[in-house]
């Protein structure tokens, strides 16, 4: 168990900024996820913590002790790799024992510790197998066992589940989280899968362009995204224009007056989550409290559990809604009119231009 503190970390590749002034604190025992699209710097950050890249400037401290100048093999931060990196010439047992041997742990202790940890990852029966005899999921369990057996201060995971098939990914996700909680080990987890990030983490740190966009609990990230990027990347969002009138502000689509919600004079845009939009067949009675947006249906995708509605508002803006399948809607032919409604409380507003910060 250890806390991690990163201060002003920068990493340049020539003129390209890979990491720009990364400052973050990870409390002891937390499951901290770096989330972002490819090229956002999340893997670079993880590998810099592991010591595989040298930072251009900045500090990394584990439990207050600086580690940024230590060579990678002395950092005591164990890593689980995306491609497993299970040594193909060593048995499962020897793979797990590898780090203990480097730490000169005596033989009998190695034996018991390897047995314990193989039990934790449910691989005891495969201890003598060679890696090529294991499935991908089993190999990744070896990768995990090998990392946690050395009792590292920090556990680093680089998209450990992305090479597995969907079903296994969900199973192993829960198991990883359970093991991490049981051991109470501070974990930094990299993923581009937002569902994974939201499901597993204590804190999600969204990165883009080498910059931290927002670091917060999963629910906060989803309900109160700090800026337009987070609002788009985590979950989906519709962005609708807000027109300024003399003394007021109205949604261009639906013409609802939103002046009360916007204090600043700067240009803003309104965001609505697709699941907050309801679609009604023509002629349905509408709750008067809701904002009404008349639109023309462009396409409906029926996905089973839900349906996706793509429509164009009368003001010409594209809009997407997600709802439980409604036979009356699914049956609508393309280009038929559809009424969309939204609860005024579900609107959020972001500044236009710049980082697109969220307005209070």
């Amino acid at each position: 168990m250890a806390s991690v503190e990163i201060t002003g970390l920068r990493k340049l590749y020539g003129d390209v900024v890979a990491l720009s002034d990364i400052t973050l604190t990870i409390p002891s025992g937390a499951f901290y996820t770096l989330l972002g699209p490819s090229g956002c710097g999340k893997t670079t950050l993880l590998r810099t913590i592991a010591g595989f890249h040298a930072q251009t400037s900045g500090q990394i401290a584990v439990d207050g002790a600086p580690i940024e100048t230590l060579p990678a093999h002395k950092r005591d931060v164990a890593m689980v790799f995306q491609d497993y990196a299970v040594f193909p010439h060593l048995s499962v047992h020897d793979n797990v024992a590898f780090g203990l041997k480097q730490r000169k742990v005596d033989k009998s202790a190695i034996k018991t510790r390897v047995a314990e940890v193989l039990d934790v990852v449910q691989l005891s029966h495969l201890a003598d197998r060679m890696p090529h005899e294991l499935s991908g999921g089993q190999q990744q369990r070896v990768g995990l066992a090998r990392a946690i057996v050395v009792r590292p201060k920090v556990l680093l995971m680089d998209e450990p589940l992305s090479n597995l098939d969907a079903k296994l990914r969900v199973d192993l996700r829960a198991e990883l989280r359970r093991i991490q909680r049981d051991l109470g080990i501070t974990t930094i987890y990299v993923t581009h899968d937002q569902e994974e990030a939201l499901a597993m983490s204590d804190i999600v740190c969204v990165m883009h362009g080498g910059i931290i966009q927002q670091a917060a609990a999963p629910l906060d990230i989803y309900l109160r995204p700090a800026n337009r990027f987070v609002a788009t990347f985590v979950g989906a969002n519709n962005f609708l224009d807000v027109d300024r009138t003399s003394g007021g502000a109205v949604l261009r689509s639906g013409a609802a007056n939103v002046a009360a919600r916007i204090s600043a004079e700067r240009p803003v845009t309104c965001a609505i989550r697709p699941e907050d939009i309801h679609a009604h067949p023509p002629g349905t009675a509408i709750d008067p409290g809701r904002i009404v947006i008349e639109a023309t249906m462009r396409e409906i995708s029926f996905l089973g559990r839900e349906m996706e509605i793509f429509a164009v508002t009368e003001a010409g803006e594209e809009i997407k809604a997600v709802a439980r399948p409604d036979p009356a809607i699914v049956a609508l032919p393309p280009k038929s009119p559809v009424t969309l409604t939204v609860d005024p409380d579900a609107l959020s507003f972001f500044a236009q231009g710049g980082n697109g910060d969220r307005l209070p």
Partner: protein
Amino acid sequence: MSLFQRLRHTDFWTGVTGLIVAVLALLLLFPILRVLMLGFVDADTGAFTIGNFVELFTRNYYLNGFKNSLFVGVLGTLGACLIGIPLAFFTARFHVQGQAWISTLAILVLVAPPFIGAYAWIMMLGSNGFMTNFFGLFGIETPTIYGAHGIILVFTLKFFPFIYLMTQTSLNGMNKSFEDAAENLGCTPWQRFTKITLPLVFPAVSTGAIICFVLAIADFGTPAILGRGFRTLSTIAFSAYRSELGGRPTMAVTVSIVMMAISMLALLAQRRILSKRRYASALTNPPVKQRMTGWRNTVMHVFCHGIVLIAMLPTLVVVYTSFLKTNGPVFIGGYGLESYERILRTAPEAISNSFVFSLGAVVLITVFSGLISYVIVRRETAAAGAIDFLMMVPYLVPGVVMAIGFVTTFRGGPLDVVGTAGLLILLYFIRRLPYGVRSATSSLRQIKPSMEEAAVNLGAAPAKAFLVVTVPLILPGLIVGALMSFITAINELSGTLILYDGGTITMPVQIYLAVLDGEFGLAGALSTVLLVCTGACVYAVFRFAENRDSAFL
């Protein structure tokens, strides 16, 4: 970080890179630079001059050698293409009986000592050759093997495996959809072959052809044995070196520079042509072999097997003559082991030297190719790029040139090591290092970097991670590289011929001298010993290499 801190943190691989650069500078760059500089020096005064090159391009003696080299180089390469491409096409696109046998024979031809072909053809078609005598009985005059056409014949039969193996690999890796699409768009089979298949294998063919051309230009043994007054640049360089012995070998060096320039220009031209032709494609639809029937099938089989058998003929003749009963240099009829007795009596040190030098070189090569491959593949520094580039150089520098570079660099002063075993080992090391590096490099490219990162992450220092994780994983590549460099080291002739002295004679040199003396029994026995070693290594490569054919290219 302060400079002091940085020095303290100079890691293992930075040190290794420094060591590699130092070794390559001392054993490769420095000797070659010395050679290059000598070409611009007046033999008597030591002053700067371009007179040597003027002389080379004005005096007929040199000019003819220049033309002759190009002549046999181009025609030998062309000949190799003419038999190599059809052979590759047949074996890749049709069911040919004994396919493994054909490729094995082609590989044996490839690795057999280079000069064996030349003198075996003398035994068959020379002035007293058995074919000459046989046809003479019927009053038929066979064409003489001496001169340009003999050299071209030997080059053709010696170098076609490069074309064959490279083209075959390329044909086997070609997505069948291309040919299907051509047919679907209305091509006849012949149009499909000339308009689609041939252009698509052009990169492979041209790469094979460049290898043939460079080897043919650099080849010393064949023109030395078969030339008889037909001189090429390599034989001229060697005799110039011999006559300039003691003085500055300026003409030998000038000739060598021209040889290297030819090879370099050919390589650059090929790269330029290839740069516009990149045909990478996924092998989603692997080619399917067709069955040929009737007389076409017979002709195809006769062609395929005939080619490799004729190419193997010199080797078989050499082995055969080694078992002929001899009295001194004279064959006295019947069979016996006298030739083998004689090599044990007169030249045991040639055998032991060959093994000691080659094994010594192979140990160095294996250690360095492991380290160099890691630096090339895993480290993205300027030095790594430079080392990668330098690994091309030994292929392009003829043995004569490298050896003259060694002589001029290491002769005289307190460090006069010319003629010593150590220098020969270093010569083999630097000349054959690329074989080891290439094999190790291609092995390492298949190992994900996360392997070493995982080891380091778990607490192994970089050197230890390399030793306990990387080395076991690239071991097959290291073994194949060691075998390949052993095969090529133990067959080295031209460089050794310049650097050896009485105590450091090797088998190829002994064979060369025996052939010059007409001692064909002795030469045959020694060649057979070489062939057996080489064959054993080839067998071992088959065992260890993932793709047995491409390991030899």
